[in-house]
């Protein structure tokens, strides 16, 4: 009944073209069709934030958006943060150093939430960080180290040349 649609997207700078059914969710497209499994799927109704990616630079939930809606847009996933295989993005370094993850399932979503947030608010307070990540659920209850890591990430980004 539903026809497929041709879409063209750029993910982490690489162009992709696919035929997709309209009911394919963007998160499933990224993981299953493109094969970038760093974007995680938790609740599939927009609450947990594990699927957060950047759409034209803005953080959005990829589990409550259709792949067909991404046609012509620029996406960034967690795989797009590090410049090459040997280095980490300053936010990733901070999460490594401050142990900002336990099981790691929510981590990609939190990183992708923090990228635009720290650009907009480069010197946040602890309260502001807690508010900024309130749309990302960590079921290990590990928020303290996540908050520490986010504050460390802000410092690292500020001191970057």
């Amino acid at each position, binding site marked *: *009944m*539903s*026809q497929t*649609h041709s879409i063209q997207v750029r993910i982490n700078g690489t162009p992709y073209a696919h035929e997709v*059914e*309209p*009911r*394919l*969710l963007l998160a*499933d497209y990224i993981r299953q069709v493109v094969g970038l499994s760093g974007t995680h799927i938790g609740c*599939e*109704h*927009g609450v947990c*934030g594990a699927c*957060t990616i950047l*759409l034209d630079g*803005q*953080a*959005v*939930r990829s*589990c*409550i*958006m*259709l792949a*067909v*809606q991404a*046609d012509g847009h620029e996406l960034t996933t967690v795989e797009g943060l590090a410049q090459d295989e040997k280095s980490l993005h300053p936010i990733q370094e901070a999460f490594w150093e401050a142990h900002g993850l336990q099981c790691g399932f929510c981590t990609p979503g939190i990183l992708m*939430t923090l990228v635009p*947030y720290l650009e907009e608010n480069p010197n946040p307070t602890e309260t502001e960080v807690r*508010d*900024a990540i*309130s*749309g990302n659920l960590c079921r290990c209850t590990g928020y303290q180290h996540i908050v520490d890591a986010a504050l460390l990430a802000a410092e690292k980004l500020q001191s970057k040349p």
Partner: protein
Amino acid sequence: MKPAPFNYFAPASLEEALALKAQHGEEAKALAGGQSLIPAMNFRVAQPAILVDLNRIASLRDIRKNGALTIGAMTTQSTAEKNPLVAEHVPLLHEALPNIAHPQIRNRGTIGGSVAHADPAAELPVVCLALRTRMQAQSQSGERWIEAQEFFSGLFSTALAADELLTAVEFPLVEERTGYAFLEVARRHGDYAMAGLAAVLSLDENGLCRQARLVYLNVGDGPLEATQAAASLQGQKPSAKAFQDAGKIASQEDMQPFGNLHASPQYQQHLSAVLTQRALQLALNRITQKATHP
């Protein structure tokens, strides 16, 4: 793939979108930000046969001021939140917007989508009713304006006809000697509130209450206006006692909440009473601040 199959159209113009609505009527569901619709489709609570995605229609995204502030239906909530015209002229809307879910949701969620969805727990319908906004509805046979009081007609239902699309919301500009406040209590910031309200308070030249509007969320089958509480304030000198009484009347006489998983009806009434007092006091403070610091 969680949603049930459907046919998808992404028209580039309003004319095309209206033609699709005219052709398919109720079968064709408008897709705005999708932040409520796609979750409902993922649960298969909603199984529309046809989706008409409005995201490519650039003309529905403008914000313009002409005696009122008219916000295109497809303006995202985060765009409105950051817009200086909204902050200056419709401060109640500016204050309510950050209470809608999380930034990731507001980056996609739209003003018109939330209003047309008419979720009783949503912030925007409450703001629209408290401010007496007007909704622009368009169909192939033309446009009409619907007052907020007529627009919200019950649980997830509005006065929009099957062939109509909500294209803009017109917010009146904040007036002199008028204060406002939006307050809600949620278990976690961004979750659906257990109770909340939008309050608008206007004083006359003598400092007496000329008019009050109190509209509550999540305690009825739509935005719930406390008319008896508002009437109790009319002509009164604003005072902590008058505000406390208004809270009592609103929570005991104007509403009969159903309660939900996180709050019993009694707790919702308690929260509503307390929030009413606070919101009215905040609204009053904002009038006096403006008078002393023009």
